[in-house]
């Protein structure tokens, strides 16, 4: 008898080679993708459609939203929301919410301002210190939520008031300006070599990224085959790869035409890669999903659920601090009014990007897509000259519709 608990993974004996019937017909497969993965692909499709819609509408104004300069601006304008959205996605996957991140941004900006401008600390030291303060704030909130079992809504609502108040206290109601150039480059700088003409380094990075994508896709397909799982049709696979390469290089070429990729854009890309890997591949990432999906089951499976939630909030604190630093650098000043409503933008991005309000579901890439949907709409509506009141109202409706669409699909999939 084979033992049930043989824990050593053995290589699968004679990997079944994918046969003709293991490959799906292309039409059938496209149908299946559309049916089964509305969640993953739906929002990307929505992003593309919204971008094209606004491109058409704004084309008359200097070439529309998809010109190199506007795309660069969109990255710069939304960078801090993108950073927040990543952390917020993790919090929501974990089954919680964080309303305090906007206030944390303000407090961190204030602390950074005092440290750099008033105390004269070198800016890198101040940034590291600011991130540590963010971690401490996250630990404080995580402690109340995970160990004292106070609902995150309450704890972070209190945090929203508390940290806003502290930010005003630290700044004494004033605005601090006069950040050194190096600090400002965090939000406004580009890679070396930016100037006239095409930015070669950005193009090289784009090509390198394409190569990595092709390698990963091929590896994934090979592994699926070795497990004997059903493979998609070969033309569709290559279509997907070519599509990805096209998107990546269109993006890098567009940026290269202007000034190259902004530093903050690289930071965001690095964060997306890092957190995607952590959430998809690591033990702690899996446990974060499990805690959000069913906390009691996770606990009985030996997951340290409280510690997990604490870590998720510490992480949120650090990312909120990073967003606060980026925002201060972009504003070139620290003000007590910084970060107002950032939490709402980040939460909206996560839900538009496919998070489930009950936890356990969502992806980092989804949060980015959600944030970009909101970002594209912001820019498009601004260029069109829509007043801020209408912009708000429309964004509210988009959030509602996105989640309604998701709920509808989920229900349809279940019945």
């Amino acid at each position, binding site marked *: *008898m084979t033992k049930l608990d043989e*824990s050593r*993974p053995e290589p699968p004996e004679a990997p079944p080679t994918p046969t003709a019937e293991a490959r799906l017909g292309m039409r059938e497969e496209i149908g299946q993708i559309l049916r089964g993965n509305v969640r993953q692909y739906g929002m990307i499709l929505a992003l593309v459609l919204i971008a094209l819609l606004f491109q058409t509408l704004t084309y008359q104004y200097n070439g529309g939203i998809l010109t190199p300069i506007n795309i660069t601006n969109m990255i710069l304008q939304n960078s801090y929301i993108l950073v927040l959205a990543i952390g917020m996605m993790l919090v929501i996957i974990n089954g919680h919410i964080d309303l305090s991140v906007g206030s944390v941004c303000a407090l961190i900006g204030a602390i950074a301002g005092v440290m750099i401008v008033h105390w004269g600390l070198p800016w890198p030291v101040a940034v590291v210190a600011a991130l540590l303060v963010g971690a401490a704030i996250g630990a404080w909130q995580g402690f109340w939520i995970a160990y004292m079992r106070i609902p995150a809504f309450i704890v972070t609502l209190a945090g929203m008031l508390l940290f806003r108040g502290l930010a005003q206290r630290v700044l004494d109601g004033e605005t601090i300006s006069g950040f050194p150039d190096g600090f400002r480059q965090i939000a406004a700088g580009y890679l070396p070599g930016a100037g006239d003409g095409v930015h070669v380094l950005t193009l090289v990075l784009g090509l390198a990224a394409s190569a990595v994508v092709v390698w990963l896709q091929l590896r994934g397909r090979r*592994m699926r085959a070795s497990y004997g799982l059903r493979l998609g049709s070969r033309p569709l696979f290559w279509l997907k790869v070519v599509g990805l390469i096209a998107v990546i290089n269109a993006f890098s070429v567009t940026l290269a035409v202007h000034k190259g990729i902004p530093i903050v854009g690289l930071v965001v890309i690095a964060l997306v890669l890092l957190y995607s890997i952590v959430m998809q*591949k690591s*033990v702690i990432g899996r446990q974060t999903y499990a805690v959000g*999906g069913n906390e*009691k*089951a996770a606990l*009985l499976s030996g997951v340290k659920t409280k510690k997990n939630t604490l870590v998720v909030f510490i992480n949120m604190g650090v990312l909120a601090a990073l967003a606060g630093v980026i925002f201060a650098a972009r504003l070139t000043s620290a003000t007590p009014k910084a970060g107002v409503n950032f939490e709402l933008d980040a939460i909206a991005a996560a839900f538009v990007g496919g998070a489930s309000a009950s936890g356990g579901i969502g992806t980092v890439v989804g949060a980015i897509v959600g944030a970009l949907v909101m970002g594209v709409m912001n820019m498009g509506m601004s260029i069109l000259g829509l007043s801020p009141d209408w912009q708000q109202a429309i964004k509210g409706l988009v959030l509602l519709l996105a989640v309604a669409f998701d709920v509808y699909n989920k229900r349809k999939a279940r019945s």
Partner: protein
Amino acid sequence: MTDHILQMRSITKDFPGVRALTDVNLAVERGRIHALVGENGAGKSTLMKVLSGVYPHGDYGGEILLDGAEVRFRGIRDSEAAGVVIIHQELALVPQLSIAENLFLGNERHRGGLIDWRTTNTRAVELMHRVGLDADPQALVSGIGVGKQQLVEIAKALAKDVRLLILDEPTAALNETDSDNLLNLLKDLRKQGITCILISHKIDEVLRVADTITILRDGEVVETADVAIDDVDEDRIIKGMVGRDMKHRFPPRDPDIGEVFFEINDWNVFHPEVADRQLVRDASLNVRRGEVVGLAGLMGAGRTELAMSVFGRSYGSHISGTARKDGKPVRLSTVPEAIANGIAYVTEDRKQYGLLLEEDIRRNMMLAGLRKVARGFFISAHAELVESERLRQRLGVKASSVLQKAGQLSGGNQQKVVLAKSVFATPDLLILDEPTRGIDVGAKYEIYTIIQELAAEGKGVLVISSELPELLGLCDRIYAMSAGRITGELSRREATQEEVMRLMTRTMPTAVTP
């Protein structure tokens, strides 16, 4: 001529890709208890959903006649207006409201939009009297036991002037006493002229109260038998349900029992919120290698509390006592510690405490042993797939692949996934809490086989079950618990239903030390 309150003729119901009901005929005589039995997935619930209007007219084929006239329900409101009320397995009560408020929920006694509290409460008392519920009508539903909550549900149906009452697994969550009360109540209601359709897994119950029994299998009626005329017994029903002879409801047991390797002594557990309420009192028990040990007890006896407190103090407070494994004391103060010490606990409530319903089989199975498929920080997708597939085949989980969502599986397959998760953590002692609750006869047999195989590998298995025949058929030794104490221990040879029940209901203060 017989007087039929309900006739369902040639009912056919299709779901995308599957036919759930095929040409089902069901005729229910007035004033009788009509039992509907069948394995999970046989179509009982679907048939009742057709009857109660959950699937509106036009969604199914065939016709429904109530008192000889055709009815076309468009929703539950329609069917309730006609006096057909269904009580689901999961009770639909609002715990934060009082009994009286629940009785008239959606059906409030009011005068000009304001609740008429006098009528509400006096009518509530009448209704509660009819179902034999002795409680304050203003008590909150959250404060009364599951047995009484079930009675509230029935009283609620009576408040709607029910003529045909449908009960879906009414005793699934009840202990023996409450079950008895409920079955007697059904007989009382029969005297009051209320017709009842009873859906149940518990065949002995059905035989006790039913006048007529209809057996469903794979969406078709196998037979309808009159208990008074036909010669109906458990074997015949089981045979009809599963379509095969179930003479052997338990796999043959040829135990190879070793030394005592796990024991707890003087174990005490208190309620997590009510500090002076003791749930387990001076309990001592042991398990040998290769042995299947049963833990019998009525609901509230403290079995689950005992098990979960041993499993890393996952329930209770002020836990005291010693636990020894292989003669050495072990610390079991957190769940990770318990798992590291080779103890696994499989919950009685797989949906609430066992599964990530939105995740796939693979991720559920791996959750308690992620370190085994991880190299350092990262999980190996390869190892994960190989391991989960091996467990799936080994435990016979029926699914399209390990990538199927746990929420889409049947109860029996979900139970196997939860079991696989615990097995993957390589335990020496498995504590299985109601391992076959709410799953069909065929899947039960498979679970029993798995339990025996685990024991044959030299593991100890402690089975908590409310079904005495299950304990008698499966276990080498049975402990009985009553009111937090272990009241006795019986070997396979000594154990009879009567003897175990005697120990389960014993309330003397002296604990019998084995």
